[in-house]
């Protein structure tokens, strides 16, 4: 490359013809600004953007600051869980569900076990039922706490994030006590639970339910009537009642739009009809109402936990059926019959009758469906997860188009996505 001399018309410092001091220009004379009027901008958000809550990628067309079009791209975390499930026994599927919606692993474990039990026609024990309610509601609290924390960070409030994660940590300690794992709990088995709760668990849970509402009150105090929070969320991402139903939304997204539909009330399972709790329903269908619904659900989950812990009946956690439940290890080592059952279950798995079963449960994110199709062998022909946040996320384009880019962040946060479940 040849050396190029650049001729710059710099004024020498000193005095000009009139005797006035001249100044050296600090930069070259700016070029005329190009005319940007009417030109749309392509902005790529993600897949590693902190405000996308995981590996979600949004290709956004912008006109100035207004979102014209949102094209979501998902699948970066696709692991083929449904395919893997076709090669596993029903109990071996349970660890896979830890990794779908990893913010509420225990509730996923319950969902898949219930679907397998419906397929096999198993009735679980009263103690197991209450333990599963505890598992589901603990999951709802930690999932909503993560949602609250990350959303408040997205919208510029850092403090509630710390409070929320502190409460989540307490539930994680309880989960660790119960299952030995904080995240990958695998707490259920077809026909029962992996383990009974340990000594001291009930006391700690009782202590949690006593002190937890105080944190919620603090979060409520900081956010609900906060002008910045309300300004960023009220009237943003509105979905009407009809649109929410037509888009197949579920969970807090559906209820914030004014549809009073909660599977715990409308299709009760695990004896939810015997607990005293309310289902919060929004009326505007915007981000603010979704926040209010989730915050109130935390109070209600706490109520359910407090009731469940008091009514926890004594008795076995597993059904009395050696064909589905592994015998205790001590018996399997000493008793011929128990050893044969142990061998058959481990080697062949539990055979399910021909047919199919769908069970939907109210997960923190919405209706988690597990659909099993069996051909009579120990492995399902098809295992389908109805992923609530996948279906909820599909509405993001409709909510964000025509809004500002900053609203897109609030809207995306309000869907409460978890990519492990969306991509499966």
């Amino acid at each position, binding site marked *: 490359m040849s050396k190029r001399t650049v001729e710059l018309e710099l004024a020498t410092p000193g005095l000009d013809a009139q005797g006035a001091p001249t100044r050296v220009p600090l930069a070259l004379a700016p070029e005329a600004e190009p005319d940007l009027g009417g030109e749309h901008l392509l902005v790529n958000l993600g897949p590693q953007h902190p405000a996308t809550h995981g590996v979600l990628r949004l290709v956004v067309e912008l006109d100035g600051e207004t979102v014209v079009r949102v094209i979501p791209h998902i699948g970066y975390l*696709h692991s083929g869980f449904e395919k893997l499930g076709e090669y596993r026994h029903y109990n071996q599927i349970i660890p896979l569900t830890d990794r779908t919606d990893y913010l509420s692993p225990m509730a996923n474990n319950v969902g898949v076990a219930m679907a397998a039990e419906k397929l096999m026609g198993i009735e679980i024990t009263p103690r197991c039922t209450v333990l599963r309610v505890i598992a589901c509601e603990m999951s709802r609290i930690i999932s909503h706490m993560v949602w609250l924390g990350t959303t408040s960070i997205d919208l510029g409030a850092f403090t509630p994030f710390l409070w929320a994660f502190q409460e989540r940590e307490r539930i994680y300690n309880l989960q660790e006590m119960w299952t030995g794992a904080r995240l990958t709990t695998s707490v259920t088995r077809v026909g029962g639970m992996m383990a009974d709760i340990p000594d001291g668990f009930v006391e700690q849970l009782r202590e949690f339910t006593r002190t937890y509402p105080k944190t919620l009150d603090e979060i409520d105090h900081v956010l609900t009537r906060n002008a910045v929070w309300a300004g960023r969320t009220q009237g943003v991402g509105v979905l009407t009642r009809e649109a929410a139903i*037509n888009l*197949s939304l579920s969970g807090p997204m559906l209820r914030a739009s004014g549809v009073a539909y909660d599977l715990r009330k409308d299709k009760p399972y695990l004896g939810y009809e015997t607990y005293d709790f309310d289902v919060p329903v929004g009326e505007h269908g915007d981000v603010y109402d979704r926040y209010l619904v989730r915050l109130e659900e935390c109070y209600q989950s706490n109520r359910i936990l407090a009731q469940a812990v008091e009514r926890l009946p004594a008795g076995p956690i597993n059904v009395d059926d050696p064909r589905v439940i592994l015998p205790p290890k001590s018996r399997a080592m000493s008793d011929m019959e128990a050893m044969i059952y142990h061998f058959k279950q481990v080697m062949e798995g539990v055979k399910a009758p021909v047919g199919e079963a769908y069970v939907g449960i109210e997960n923190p994110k919405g209706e988690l469906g597990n659909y099993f199709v069996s051909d009579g062998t120990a492995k399902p022909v098809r295992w389908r997860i109805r992923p609530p946040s996948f279906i909820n996320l*599909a509405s993001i384009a409709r909510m964000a188009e025509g809004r500002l880019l900053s609203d897109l962040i609030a809207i995306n946060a309000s869907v409460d996505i978890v990519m492990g479940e969306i991509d499966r």
Partner: protein
Amino acid sequence: MNPSVAALRTTFGSAIGRALDVRGDTIVYVQRERLPEVMRWLRDAPGHEYHYLVDVTAVEYRDRERQLEVVYFLRALHRQADLRVKVELDPAGDLTVDSIVSLWAGADWLEREVYDMFGITFRGHPDLRRILMWETYNEGYPLRKDFPLRGRFSRSEQVRQALNISPEANYSMEELSIADASDDLPADMRERLRKGERGRVQESE
């Protein structure tokens, strides 16, 4: 048995196939050609009003003789009634069903996922692209029974393809046409896009 099945039979006659009651859930088989009108009727007919689409999925059986099924889960929210509608397809034949996105907007991504995983085409879908796999994925349809668990290509081949994929594979032509972003692309990339060579894997030497 869900009373909607009898009503369906009187309205649509031979378009309604067998109906089963499996563990308390009603399953009804519908002829593929009549699916859109049956679904519209189920959504709108007074007394039935299945306004809510829970899920759309497909099932392929290990038994090669059995048909591939597309499964629609419908729900009437106000009266807690569920109905499962199935359409049978010949796995060796034409895997095409009419889309129901015009009835339920929520079916959009669900149908895309079924297309992605099973290769079933939904006629009339506004934007039928792969969703979980990337758009240039060319190993087939992962949830079909003839698809091996570990995929068709070896790990090294998959890595090679991933490394050699041209960068424009990350954007569709439609996305690049936003604004005048395409003018800012390097000339060779623009040339490849013009010829429709999006995301083609270059042969390694």
